[in-house]
């Protein structure tokens, strides 16, 4: 089953130098259980594409399908609902809600989506090595710990699609590898599809497939 379909996505931005086309008809497919690494130079449009896939940003043209739902045909609240129930998002930073502790953060999306399962959250927390940190607040965590909480929160809601934008970009190499390991393993176990944006070839190599963005188009997909 297909988790994410992007069809001929175009997107340009108005800048001081005029209209800049960032995405020029990009198409992608991602099956359930599959992981895809999206690479490209800084400024090539990776984040923009991920934002469009998450419904955070509107494409100028093209179609975004999450599972069987056509996101481009939906309004603001429809896309928000889809995000709540189907999509897990992990960014480089600012993932966590600063006023809630780790336990509340972990369960947040699952409870929002109405699929909270306390036992599953506890298990995830244990596997992510978070059990001792449950009462802490985000500002009291290291970067790696914060990203592990973000992964836990995302997976606790059992999304069909996980979108991660350089989730380890702020971490040192060893910690980053650890976090990425956990993410790959747990998404695979959950049977979710993973779109991982990264500019690191080394990390990209660990995904099932790869796509490279260059000059607004997918240059090579394997």
């Amino acid at each position, binding site marked *: 089953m297909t988790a994410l379909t992007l069809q001929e996505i175009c997107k340009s931005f108005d800048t001081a130098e005029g209209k800049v086309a960032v995405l020029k008809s990009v198409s992608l497919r991602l099956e359930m259980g599959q992981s895809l690494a999206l690479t490209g130079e*800084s*400024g090539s449009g990776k*984040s923009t594409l991920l*934002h469009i896939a*998450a419904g*955070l*940003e509107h494409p100028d043209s093209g179609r975004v399908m999450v599972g069987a739902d056509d996101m481009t045909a939906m309004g*603001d*609240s429809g896309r*928000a*609902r*889809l*995000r*709540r*129930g189907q999509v897990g*998002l992990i*960014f*480089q*930073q*600012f*993932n*966590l*809600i*600063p*006023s*809630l502790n780790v336990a*509340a953060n972990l*369960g*947040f*999306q699952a*409870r*929002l*989506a109405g699929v909270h399962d306390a036992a599953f959250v506890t298990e995830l927390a244990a596997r992510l090595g978070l059990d001792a940190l449950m009462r802490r607040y985000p*500002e009291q965590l290291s970067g790696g710990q914060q990203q592990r909480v973000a992964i836990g929160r995302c997976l606790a809601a059992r999304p069909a699609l996980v979108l991660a*934008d350089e989730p380890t*970009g702020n971490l040192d190499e060893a910690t980053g590898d650890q976090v990425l390991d956990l993410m790959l393993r747990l998404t695979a176990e959950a049977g979710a599809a993973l779109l991982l944006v990264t500019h690191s070839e080394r990390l990209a190599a660990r995904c099932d497939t790869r796509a490279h963005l260059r000059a607004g188009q997918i240059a090579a997909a394997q």
Partner: protein
Amino acid sequence: MTRAALSALLSHWRGNPLQLVMLLAGLALATALWSGVQALNAEARSAYSTAEGLLSEGGAARLEHPSGQIDQAEFARLRRAGWQVSPVIEGRAALGTGRVTVLGIDPLSAEASVGAALAASDLEGFFNGLGFAHPQTLAEIGPTDQPLRATPAVPVGTVLVDLATAETLLGTGGHITRLNLSLAQPDGLQPLETLVPDLRLIAPEDGVELSGLTDSFHLNLTAFGLLAFAVGLFIVHSAVGLAFEQRRAMFRTLRALGLPLRSLTACLAGEMVLFALISGTVGLGIGYLLASALLPNVALTLRGLYGAPVPGSLQFDPLWALAGLGMTLAGTALAGAQALWRLWHMPILAPAQPRAWAHASGRTMRLQAGVALALACLAAVLALTGTGLVAGFTLLAATLLAAALAVPLVLAAVLAGAARISRTPVAQWFWADSRQNLPRLSLALMALMLALSANIGVGTMVASFRATFIDWLDLRLVAEVNVLPRSPSEAEALHAFLTPRADAILPMQRIDATLGGQPGQIYAMKDHSTFRDNWPLIDPVANVWDRLAAGEGVLVNEQLYRRAGLAPGTSMLELPNIGPLPVLGAYPDYGNPLAQAVVSLDRFAAAYPETPIRQFAIRTEDTPGLMAALQDDFGLPSVQITDQAQAKELSLTIFERTFLITRALNVLTLSVAALALFAALVTLSGMRLAQLAPLWALGLTTRHLAALELGRALALGLMTMVLALPVGLLLAQVLLSVINVQAFGWRLPMQVFPADWARLGLWASLAVLAAAAIPALRLWRRGAAQLLQVFAHER
């Protein structure tokens, strides 16, 4: 270097225009409210002192004839005997297009008074008919044949002229209204009683009844002005503090570039002075306008209610402007001191990041709790043991400050509790997040709390004052008609005339006496249901009215009761010619500075025979009929007769104007607080994006988030309102039963008006919603693009 630094520092405001507007507006409003109230008070006060200087003639005693007219012969007899007296002719006359009070004086024999000084400025003109009048009077009456010179030294509505001119204008035919006695009289004079037995000696205290109630009124206004100023300073403090936090990086850079700390501090101080001067000037302008707008109401209130002459237009006093600017500067210094102090202690390589609020706020909170507790203890001690007006005001300030400081602490506890018991994740976040952001809103909420409790406190006080005043009016004006006899023979004739026509005739007689060591008066009271049924008594003994009627004791007014510490049932009061009598109870006597005692008619007649009857209060079912009979059949001039119902109605209408002023000030204070909240919410909304972004990414729409932001502001506002309620009532209690008693000797019974609170709650909610609307709307409309920026870390 310094200039470059200054321009760099000032460039911050170009990027944050809203912050600048807030700072300037906060200062300007604070200045406006404070100086506006000051201007009102000063204008009214100077009007009183003008009136007193001119009319009470230096506080001298005076001689009057019961008929209101003194014969020239009696004046001549007194002068021949060596008495230093100065004749005055006073009366109402038509002049131009209006009616004025004509005051004729003899500048040569008059004591040094304002009137005499005025006349002396052009003695020849004065003797040749030149008069003096307030510019407003001149405008009101238009051109006249009478030569008049404008001067603000004469009260509005009065024309000061020479005796001869007054005689012509009034047509008094050589009669004198009264004779003022000089303070210094030669020794060995023939006593007045034998020299002029017909004339009554009137003590100067009789004339000062005005100041009792007006002082209370001005005290209210001053308290209000001060509170408004404090609220304004809260805004300034938060704006200055925020600008400081945001410019930390700039400070660091400037210092790294070699700008000495002292220059940097001087630059910032200079910046603050600049802002204070700009907004202080604007504030003075607004304050002047505000005072001008309110003055006609204040003037009417004071003129109508207390008979105090206050002009309806404001004069500009440069001293007032200077004092206002000084206050602004001092306030700015107070509000900015903390920021400057922190700058002075900031290490050169301090992190450019604004310090983590959460960490710092923990310590601040503990400190705040300590200070609040200490102030509360001080207030408690003062409430239990303090005496005097200073203690009263300190109690007031300590209570308010303690309450304001406690606001964030109480709110934090409530929010934490709400977060704990809420079930849904969004609710949990809502409360937790509100709590997290509390430190940044707490100043604004404290300002709101002050504004609301001041509203409730002063509102309760004024409403209690009003209710009491109505009771008092009812009490004083129970009789339907009041008649003033001009002589003892007329009094006798009137009594005979009225006996068959009225339901009851209550004569009013009094003498001046020293009571419990204080200047006072003794009244005679006829035993009648008018008093039995209507007079509320404080602490009466059993069968108080029967015992009073039987001559077994006295009633005293509340002032005497409190000042002399009299206990009804056990205390005795020494009365001249009577001896000690048991005190039977006390009655409220608002606004009277003198002590008062009431005895039965028989007691009075026995002890003070020949005391003239000053007036008759008449009970009747047929007011118009009786009034017509008095005028047509008895031939009493209409000025000697008052329809009490009409008098009451007039007093009430005028009194309502007082409320207009209070309400206007209430609205203004609340607006200032709303502005403070708006400032805090706007600045907060910029910093909150990173807190909101994850929620948005997780599937909350910007509309939902905006609604939650509105709800948060409303919830905090309502909680503050709930906290403000007891504080406001406490404030009212302090104002009514501490300050008022200390200042004026009488206590106003407190009455509560829950409907007023509901209305205030509604207004406060609207103010809070208005303050939160723009940031919320911005989040809803433009939120998505801005929230996305949070994640677009590479830019």
